[in-house]
């Protein structure tokens, strides 16, 4: 038998629609209603400004450690905007903009990073999971959720976010493998922001792309310009439609960049050059989308200024309300809530122990 090339069923594409200057490829431009385009823009702007405000709060000591999202707004909003409210969001820990889109309150974001367990609360009508910090581990939950949707014959999908670092974790590979084998309606959204704390993308894998990892599991993959909200939206819409019609999972690799620190406990100057960051400033997802909207006559500079003011006021109100609420929170006994449906006797005893200690401290 001769050696011969094996014909693989997938090819890998790269998709870019809106370039760095905000010029659109007319052939690829998705047909998005004006109202939705403006909504996407507002969500991206809110994500950016709220992120900036969170960083200030952290630097002022009013909040603890968090992972900023600046620069990744298009990857998040472009993808999440393709879901219905009955679909499920499975986030990692750098998806604040996507979470706000899905109904999470700014108050919860602040509370969580200010160290209040209550920040993790999720309203009963939201099909969102809480943030998952152990890298890549949440990918499996999305596959389990979407298997259950399929079993229940619901036309829902689950969308899971993760970063480039997560593609080195075993769980990511097990999740893609399970999704491929069981053909679950799962959308894997990789925000390749080039850095896993201090380790560059090139140190995570020798593979040319991250999207190609999906191909090994028989799952379609696509690489998109993650700073181009139109490209992310188009790829995600295709993936969601495929999943919803029973054609299984997809992985989307969004090429983006972590403009800020990994978390507020990190100093990127130790491991990456400022010039690299400068290059990505020119590829800012927000500015190019604004250029596109202006060129389309959908928004003016004045309207952007007004929107900025509106968002600023919204954020201020959220911060004020949250800090007011903090005054009522913080009862240490609340730590005993929500471990089990019912508190077992030994934990009732331990709760009592703390209660007595607190009473003594009050006296």
């Amino acid at each position, binding site marked *: 038998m001769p050696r011969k090339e094996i014909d693989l069923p997938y090819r890998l594409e790269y998709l870019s629609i809106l370039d760095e200057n905000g010029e659109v490829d007319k052939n690829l431009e998705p047909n998005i209603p004006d109202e939705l385009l403006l909504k996407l823009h507002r969500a991206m702007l809110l994500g950016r400004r709220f992120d900036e405000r969170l960083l200030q709060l952290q630097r002022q000591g009013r909040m603890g450690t968090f992972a900023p999202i600046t620069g990744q707004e298009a990857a998040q909003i472009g993808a999440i905007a393709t879901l219905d409210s009955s679909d499920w969001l499975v986030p990692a820990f750098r998806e604040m903009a996507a979470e706000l889109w899905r109904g999470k309150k700014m108050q919860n974001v602040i509370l969580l990073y200010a160290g209040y367990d209550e920040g*993790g609360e999720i309203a009963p009508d939201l099909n969102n999971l809480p943030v998952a910090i152990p890298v890549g581990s949440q990918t499996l939950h999305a596959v*389990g959720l979407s298997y259950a949707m399929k079993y229940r014959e619901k036309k829902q999908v689950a969308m899971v976010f993760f970063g480039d670092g997560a593609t080195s974790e075993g769980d990511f590979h097990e999740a893609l493998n*399970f999704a491929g084998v069981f053909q679950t309606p799962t959308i894997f959204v990789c925000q390749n922001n080039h850095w896993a704390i201090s380790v560059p993308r090139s140190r995570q894998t020798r593979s040319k792309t991250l999207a190609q990892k999906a191909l090994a599991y028989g799952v379609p993959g696509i690489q998109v310009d993650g700073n181009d909200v139109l490209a992310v939206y188009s790829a995600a819409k295709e993936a969601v439609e495929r999943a919803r019609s029973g054609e299984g999972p997809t992985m989307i690799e969004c090429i983006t960049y972590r403009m800020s620190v990994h978390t507020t406990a990190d100093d990127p100057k130790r491991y990456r050059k400022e010039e690299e960051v400068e290059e990505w400033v020119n590829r800012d997802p927000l500015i190019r989308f604004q250029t596109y909207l202006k060129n389309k006559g959908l928004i003016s500079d004045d309207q952007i200024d007004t929107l900025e003011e509106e968002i600023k006021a919204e954020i201020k109100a959220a911060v004020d309300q949250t800090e007011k609420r903090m005054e009522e929170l913080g009862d240490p006994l609340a730590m005993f809530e929500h471990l089990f449906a019912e508190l077992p006797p030994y934990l009732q005893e331990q709760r009592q122990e703390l209660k007595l200690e607190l009473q003594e401290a009050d006296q």
Partner: protein
Amino acid sequence: MAKMTMVQAINLALHQEMERDDNVVVLGEDVGWDGGVFRVTDGLIEKFGEQRVIDTPLAESGIVGFSIGMALYGLKPVCEIQFSGFSYFAFHQLESHAARLRWRSGGRHHVPMVMRAPYGGGVRALEHHSESREAVYAHTPGLKMVIPSSPRNARALLVSAIRDPDPVVFFEPKAVYRAFREEVPEEEETLPIGRSQIAREGKDVTLIAYGAILHETLEAASTLQKEDGIEAEVIDLLTVSPLDDTLFTESARKTGRVVVVHEAPRSFGAGAEVVSRLVEKSFLYLEAPIRRVTGFDLIIPLFQREKAYLPGVKRIMRAIRETLEF
């Protein structure tokens, strides 16, 4: 009532719970057409189909993480890890997520899943097939750790575990799987999780055990009755965590003498917790130091030396006599 082995009794629980509630799904390696390597899931796939009895890829973390996702949606997955020695691949999914999602989401989500795994020694197996690491799970806040000792209580506890709204790790003593038969009622039976039982009544000394070693403990008790006229009370914990300390506290206060038996390593084991509770709550009732008869703090040896490692009847009897003579 039919006489059943533990394998048959667990199988009955799975059949009946799957019939009763279509949220219950079974998954794991070889659980489908093979019926599981111990045949615990025999006949399920024929009856409930491939969607509910899922032969998964060979990936323990995948199995548990996937189960968590199904449970978050409202299903009740019962996943099998083929041997507890392979459950560490999945430990972080249990620790980081199954045990925490209720808490992390402020009560919005919960994870009603069961992770079943055969555990323990005594079956002449390969490395990684004979360990008892229940303490690892019992030490993890948010998990329940259940270990039955007989066919009837295995069936009843598994039904309760499946209906429990929180994640339950269910270790099945594989040395008991086919060791003996017991009457198991056809009609539904449950046992509360977090409740121990008196396996044998007595007044002279309290023996506390669970899992496979309960049977050696009972044998030691009846031999001592015959040989020395000693009446030992035996408590079967059934749930390692949340630990029920009411029965053994009551018993220890009555007898004043206690021996704790398990096959897991001694240090930081379940026995250490039992002893601590007794010392904290019943110190002045004790007539003698509490003894622990356990596995040594070693990797359980391969099967030529396994018998010497596991606490047998003789070792248990000696500890009881020494406690009584103190």
